[in-house]
């Protein structure tokens, strides 16, 4: 009897708690209701037959979004669905934003989505689009693919926005004046994380690097960051076990992490092949940071400050899923084009490029400060979120990192260190 009573109390409590926590994010039901309300309002408006403000169109800008069909990696975590539409909804929302603004100014925007299939040749497909006169490209491609594009004759007459590749080489020795990097580089992410770890005084690291090339690049950036901010890497190991850890992690990880004394386990495992299995299994009780645990990123589902709630709601309403980093980068790229054309009232490639690289350009992108491009390498300057899977922990740059131009430039390679020559 008594047990039953407590059970009821427990359920009541659980229910009221769940009600409280739901108040920030809209539920699926709320999203559906808004969708329905939207439709009804649209119909009612059409019935009233009122005209919408529309200036005569003077500029039409065509933007191309390019993604590539890829081998689906083996699913190691059963939790996250593999997305084949990353970037799509980001572009879609940004185009709507651009069109809304454009309607008042007489600027029109068109978008083409191109998914390059496995059997197709990226270079040829890209050339075809250039021949058709397309000038603005938002691309979801990796380093090698971007390098292929750079070899196309006349490529300097178009503008490309990189939404995925984090390689520092693309921002330095391989940089181009017409390639803009929305995605933060490995070194920006590493510095954002290091600044926070220093604030926590977690200055002794155990660094674990995965088997992939990008894991090594991220680890290199972390090592450089450690050196820059005077952090000690006490132990460094490469994870090269090929077995699926789902059943054996309990045995393998303690032995792997046994050894020297350290404050924090830093992981570089971008594909998520083993990183998730480290937590709670290390020999010593230590937090995990890097590509798993506390993770630096440009966008996260827990981000809700500075109007981000609106973006998250709009995105979920449109796509039915959470916004990823590539989605956010694609949104930012298309908005950057729109913002520039709005201000300079021209879609001439060179004029747009110069404006983007100038100090006049600034875009509100739900990060609390305006985002802009570094004039020396085309990298987007933006605050970096540090988030655990279900909570926002901090935003870098951390307080006290001062810079004569922008505190955002305390992360990543600053102008004096950059080897990019336009």
């Amino acid at each position: 009897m008594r047990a039953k009573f407590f059970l009821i109390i427990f359920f009541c409590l659980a229910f009221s708690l769940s009600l409280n926590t739901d108040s920030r994010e809209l539920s699926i039901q709320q999203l559906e209701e808004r969708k329905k309300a939207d439709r009804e309002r649209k119909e009612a408006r059409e019935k009233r037959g009122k005209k919408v403000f529309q200036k005569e169109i003077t500029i039409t800008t065509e933007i191309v979004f390019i993604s590539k069909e890829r081998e689906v990696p083996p699913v190691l975590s059963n939790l996250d669905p593999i997305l084949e539409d990353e970037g799509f909804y980001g572009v879609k929302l940004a185009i709507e934003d651009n069109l809304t603004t454009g309607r008042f100014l007489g600027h029109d925007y068109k978008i083409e989505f191109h998914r390059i299939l496995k059997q197709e040749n990226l270079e040829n497909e890209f050339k075809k689009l250039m021949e058709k006169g397309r000038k603005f490209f938002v691309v979801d491609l990796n380093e090698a693919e971007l390098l292929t594009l750079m070899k196309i004759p006349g490529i300097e007459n178009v503008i490309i926005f990189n939404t995925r590749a984090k390689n520092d080489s693309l921002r330095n020795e391989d940089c181009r004046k017409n390639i803009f990097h929305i995605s933060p580089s490995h070194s920006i992410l590493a510095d954002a994380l290091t600044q926070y770890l220093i604030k926590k005084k977690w200055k002794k690291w155990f660094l674990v690097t995965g088997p992939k090339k990008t894991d090594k690049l991220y680890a290199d950036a972390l090592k450089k960051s450690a050196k820059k901010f005077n952090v000690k890497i006490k132990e460094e190991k490469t994870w090269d076990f090929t077995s699926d850890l789902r059943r054996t992690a309990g045995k393998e990880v303690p032995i792997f992490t046994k050894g020297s004394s350290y404050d924090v386990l830093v992981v570089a495992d971008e594909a998520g092949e083993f990183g998730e299995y480290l937590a709670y299994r290390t020999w010593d009780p230590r937090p995990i940071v890097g590509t798993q645990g506390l993770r630096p990123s440009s966008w996260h589902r827990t981000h809700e400050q500075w109007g981000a709630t609106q973006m998250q709601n709009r995105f979920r309403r449109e796509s039915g899923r959470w916004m990823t980093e590539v989605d956010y980068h694609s949104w930012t790229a298309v908005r950057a084009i729109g913002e520039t054309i709005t201000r300079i009232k021209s879609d001439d490639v060179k004029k747009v490029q110069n404006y983007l690289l100038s100090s006049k350009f600034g875009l509100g992108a739900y990060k609390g400060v305006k985002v802009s491009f570094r004039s020396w390498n085309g990298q987007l300057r933006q605050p970096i979120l540090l988030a655990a899977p279900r909570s926002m922990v901090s935003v870098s740059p951390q307080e006290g990192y001062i810079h004569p131009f922008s505190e955002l430039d305390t992360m990543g390679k600053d102008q004096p260190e950059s080897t990019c020559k336009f």
Partner: protein
Amino acid sequence: MKFIFVALMSFLCFNLTSVKANLAYITNEKDNTVSVIDIGKKKVIKTVKVGQRPRGIIMSKDGKLVLICASDDDRVEVRDAKTLKLKYHLPSGPDPELFILSPDDDVLYIANEDDAMVTVVDMNDKMIIDDIPVGVEPEGMGLTNNGKTLVNTSETTNMAHFINTDTLEITENVLVDARPRVAMFTPDDSEVWVSAEIGGTVKVINPSTKEVTHTIGFEIPGVNEESIQPVGVRHTSDGKYTFVALGPANRIAVIDQKTKEIVKYLLVGQRVWQLAFTPDQKTLLSTNGVSNDVSIINVDKLKVEKSVKVGRFPWGVVISPN
């Protein structure tokens, strides 16, 4: 005997005036509550649970009704100003954020942040009359004294939209700086001031020519440029000062309304957003979102007198007219 009588009378008078002191109503965005502050006592006297994510808050001219945007409930709550009991809901369209009443309280204009619309509601029929498509993430709402011209700002489109309230159509769009939050006409309607949070400026627009006549920037020693984010704007009706809340710079700028020169910066709580005057304009209140308090400012002395703790993330503020 006479002395006692006088004493009693003065006591009564004192009591009466303190009863009549203005009340300030504060929406706490993350608590889903409204805090009521007795401005005379400088104390929270009541906290009431309201709809989800309360942001914009205004009152009817007679001081009898409090209107609250319950953003996540997609509606406007109308409450009794005395008891704060819910009287009825108004339809608002999705995600109402800020709103403004027509001079005779007949029509309510609501900015729907999530929906790129301004919704127009008839206060008597409690029905939506119309909606006007505007820029992305509309927020700021300013109205002329005669109620003929409405200015709405859109945060992502970066524009001030001028709307004719007779035809409910946009007449002109003026580009301003990034993330415009608040539009406020000067007392004589000769200018409309638009704050841009990310741009870090206030643009002054001439409503007849639709031209930007001034761009006001801010420089505060020891505060980095990126954290100067103008939001709330309030003009004194004597045309002397304009107060602009500067967000994470934790300051309110006092600007000479005529010359547009900055007179002073007042240090208040963290992330200051919205502002409201008492009817006599001797006192100004500011909501400080991150420090969870409200600053009470003496307008004559340009001095912050007290900060009053309220709920989590105070967003909007309105003060009773009587």
